[in-house]
């Protein structure tokens, strides 16, 4: 393993995509990042503003028809290797919005998902658990 791989395994950067979420999961993601009680940065993670800097991508929301192309474009911009985490039940199955005309269906039809974080919305601790799992996968991919 090269030096860069060894170092970057300790500090994956997070990127957040809202694929038509109700904002519940986004509030929980903000909670894990901003409130010292949960503090996702203890795991070496940091939220970044650009998809080109991201290593782990957290996707919330049902993938509506309106944002589908934009989400896929953003996802293409994230450099490989990357780990995808589906946050909340909406990207996993569609939740209460399943079978709606405006919903393009579960996220894994378009994007290879690695970790699913279940909950509506998931607890901040559950999100931390999911990020910890994603970091394990991230280390294997490097």
């Amino acid at each position: 393993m090269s030096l860069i791989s060894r170092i970057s395994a300790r500090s994956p950067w997070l990127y957040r995509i809202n694929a038509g979420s109700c904002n519940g999961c986004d509030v929980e993601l903000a909670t894990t990042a901003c409130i010292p009680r949960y503090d996702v940065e203890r795991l070496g993670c940091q939220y970044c503003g650009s998809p080109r800097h991201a290593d782990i991508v957290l996707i919330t929301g049902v993938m509506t028809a309106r944002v589908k192309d934009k989400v896929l474009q953003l996802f293409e911009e994230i450099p490989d290797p990357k780990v995808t985490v589906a946050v909340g039940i909406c990207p996993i199955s569609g939740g209460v919005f399943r079978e709606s005309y405006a919903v393009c269906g579960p996220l894994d039809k378009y994007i290879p998902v690695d970790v699913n974080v279940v909950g509506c919305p998931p607890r901040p601790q559950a999100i931390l658990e999911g990020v910890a799992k994603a970091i394990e996968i991230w280390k294997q991919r490097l």
Partner: protein
Amino acid sequence: MKFLKLLMRNLAKGPSTDPFPFGPTFTPKGLRGRISYDASLCTMCRACEQVCAGGAIRIDKTPEGMRLVVWQNTCVLCGLCQYYCPTGAIHHTDNWHMVHLEAEKFDQVEEGLIPYVACTGCGAKMVASYPNPKTLGFQPTQEDVEKLRLLCPSCRRKAIAAMGGKS
């Protein structure tokens, strides 16, 4: 000098960060997490399937009996099923550790089977269910209830009429 007091107090209190991924965490009382289903208490009234907001509960007929399946991945944790369940057969546990890998997506299932029993009157296959005492028209004894429980709807009507109630 006020800051010294504050400093001492914060030192005594320790960090406010939850130690979670590296240590234990708290779970509030009454937190709604993974669904638990107990087929032995279920009367198959199908109220949970009716009220389920996320469409997570599915009940289907199998040759052995009625099968109830809950897919945790589309459950919105609203608690309606446990609110409407008359016997407490379906309820939320406080287990929120539901993070899983994509390969385990369709294994996040809670299921139970209610086997058919034979009607004691005619022998037809059916799901045993307790009669509603309000619609019987008479005060049933424990014995009557047990007898009516194991009768199919048509045999039950006859039995209720024989007991002197409204059929």
